[in-house]
């Protein structure tokens, strides 16, 4: 009997830990929101909401693809460069520098589809390097991380392309039903990816490949094909994010579009609780992870702390998130 008495408080404290480990991301996000409601003036306004969502949208769009890649046990360092490629290509097309389109809407449609697909094709190339030559993902995607930005500069001769094409820039500047368009794109992608991971064969294959590649192979799963697809999707996501960025800026600079994006995306995935060793994926977690990083930055800026200090805090959050994950894993 005394054992029962002894073990009762233990098991309760365990449940608390479990609860915190499982919902840690959500708890931190809520805590940040509550803190801001109290500390930051005018926090509860549509404007603040839109500012934050607008800034976080591109990171989340890229991080959705990154979540899937990481769930297979891989990583994609090339996303920033692929954003630059899509961002360089689209203006060339809709400004009529390659082929002249009579109708601006046709030109914009072609520009968007082609540039996103080209980014996807480069993603497919990543997957091909990884599956065909058995190169480690970090090395394989480093190839385009370096070369991709070079390609984008060659395509544009290193020129900054400035433009004012509202028919295109809706994707970064307009609002539908009061919501910024890129936020709507972000929500659609998050929803689609969540659904895919949860309900489709492809989602299971991603998790199986990441969880135990040898077992997945012996179960007859198309391991290589699955990997090529996730890198393709990651490329597509990066392409879309590239378009959003140049639409906001009204210009495309191959040197700057998507710079450092790979690390922001990976950080969002890590903070969101997706295991970097593969086999687990939480797209919603990634969304929350990105929101947390964004919100911390906003909180510090809104309270007069410089951006440089915000970077240090961002790093601290990543450390804390990984620590939380380890706590979670150690008891498994």
């Amino acid at each position: 009997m005394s054992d029962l008495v002894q073990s009762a408080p233990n098991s309760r404290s365990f449940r608390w830990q479990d609860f915190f480990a499982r919902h840690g991301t959500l708890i931190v996000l809520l805590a940040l929101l509550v803190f801001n409601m109290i500390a930051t003036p005018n926090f509860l306004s549509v404007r603040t909401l839109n500012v934050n969502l607008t800034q976080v949208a591109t990171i989340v769009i890229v991080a959705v693809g990154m979540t899937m890649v990481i769930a297979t046990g891989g990583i994609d360092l090339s996303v920033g460069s692929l954003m630059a490629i899509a961002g360089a290509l689209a203006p060339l097309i809709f400004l009529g520098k390659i082929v002249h389109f009579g109708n601006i809407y046709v030109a914009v449609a072609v520009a968007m589809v082609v540039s996103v697909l080209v980014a996807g094709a480069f993603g497919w190339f990543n997957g091909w390097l990884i599956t065909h030559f058995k190169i480690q993902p970090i090395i394989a995607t480093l190839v385009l991380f370096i070369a991709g930005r070079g390609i984008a500069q060659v395509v544009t001769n290193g020129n900054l392309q400035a433009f004012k094409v509202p028919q295109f820039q809706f994707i970064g500047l307009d609002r539908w039903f009061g919501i910024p368009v890129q936020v709507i794109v972000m929500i659609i992608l998050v929803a689609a990816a969540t659904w895919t991971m949860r309900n489709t064969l492809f989602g299971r294959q991603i998790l199986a490949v990441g969880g135990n590649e040898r077992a997945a192979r012996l179960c007859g799963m198309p391991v290589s094909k699955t990997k090529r697809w996730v890198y393709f999707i990651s490329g597509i996501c990066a392409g879309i994010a590239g378009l959003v960025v140049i639409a906001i800026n009204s210009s495309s600079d191959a040197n700057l579009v998507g710079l450092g994006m790979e690390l922001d995306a990976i950080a969002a995935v890590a903070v969101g609780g997706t295991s970097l060793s593969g086999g687990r994926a939480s797209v919603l977690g990634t969304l929350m992870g990105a929101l947390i990083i964004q919100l911390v930055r906003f909180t510090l800026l809104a309270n007069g702390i410089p951006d440089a200090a915000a970077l240090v805090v961002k790093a601290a959050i990543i450390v804390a998130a990984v620590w939380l994950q380890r706590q979670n894993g150690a008891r498994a």
Partner: protein
Amino acid sequence: MALSLLSMQRISKAFGGIPALSAASLQIDAGEVHALVGQNGAGKSTMIKILTGYYRKDAGDIQFDGASFDVESPQAAQMGGISTIYQEINLVPYRSVAENICLGREKRRFGLLDWPAMYEDARALIARFNINIDVRQPLMNFNTATQQMIAISRAIGFKAKLVIMDEPTSSLDEREVGVLFDVIRQLKADGVSVIFVSHKLDELYQVCDRVTIMRDGQSVKTAAMADLTQLELIAAMLGRDIAQVSRHTTAFGDRTFQYQSGPEAPLLKVSNLRAGRKVLDVNFNMRRGEIIGLAGLLGAGRTETARVIFGEDQRQGGLVELNGVAFNPRDPADAIAAGLGFCSEDRKLDGIIPDMSVAENLTLVLLPHLSKAGIVDETAKAKIVETFIARLGVKCSGPNQKIRELSGGNQQKVLLARWLATNPDLLILDEPTRGIDVGAKAEIQSLINAMAKDGLSVLMISSELEEVIEGADRVFVLREGHSVAEFAHKDLSEQAIMQAMAYSEPATTAAGAAS
């Protein structure tokens, strides 16, 4: 009686509210070899992991070598004098044997690594095992058995007072087991205590002094091995009366053997199969509804043969025919489409997907058939999962429990279900009962039996002779990549198989020789 070296009292530990240990005790004398037995899930591993600092105990008291002992990490336990050799070898495959042996206690001279001293040290430790290998070679060049010996050498090198061996013999052949036992006896003579965890009862009687039997997270009995019959031991493990323990050693006891001779065309015919360095000339055939045993020593090429048939490795010569037609699967997916299944030997390495649930693991192969336009039909999936959990008696808290939380026996049942769910014509089972407890073993054996009665053909690779002898319609023996003998059921005997396995056993002694 010698002094007590280790005393673990009233140890409790719960995971997520579910107790794994409730007031379990273990007491080890100095210089004794102590067996720790119990079914899977009885709490042996948890007990050991608490002792070695891998888990923290919730309650209880540990005294080691006359002082309170509470370490936070395996490293600390090692420094404190407790070394552990795990079932899965935890060494660094790319580094040399010497580096592995000296890992964590590297010899230094003027702040630099003293390589000659380390090589000398490694050589001296390895020499106790009667194997002669180049300690400068990377570890991965050696086979599992040799790696095991290296792991033990490493433990001894730490001047441990207590060495824990968790199923050390599961990857060793008989000769190597003999060598290991010599080493254990030598350790004992040097005053070192050994905790020996094994599912092979014969071994316990050969080498252990006392035994502690665990069941349901508690220590139910501690006794001298000599005072306990094998039947009493099993009964205590299972928590049953002796009368209830079956007289058959395996659950194949009631099998009726068919097709002892017959003109029927074979389902699978393998002729002169050659692949890699392990499969040199393998020949066998199997008919529908037969259980075919594939026997042989470790490294005889049994698993490798199975992998070729299943399309995981590529054939370099010879012929495989399925239903009379040449069969050359490019990958496992091809083999699965042709009606094959392959339950692999190493559950952790290429069986389970640890982070996935029981349901996900169970339906992994079937999933394409449970999906329409790429979308998984969750209702159909749940129905299949429910059916198989019930049919195989998988013990889990529910289909959504993570498979890594299950005991080995239950994991194996899920893996079997994974293949049975696809309704295969031919199922390859590689060591289907390795490392699982007596109860689950019997259940799995009778399941294989029942499946074969329903017309499934089973190719069973097993190192347990009783299993092959009592279960198989016919047995083929492999030796060093060659088929050397075929036995019909009526001609089977341990003697005959062992003779075929060992006949003119050449210098396999070079257990070390790069494989």
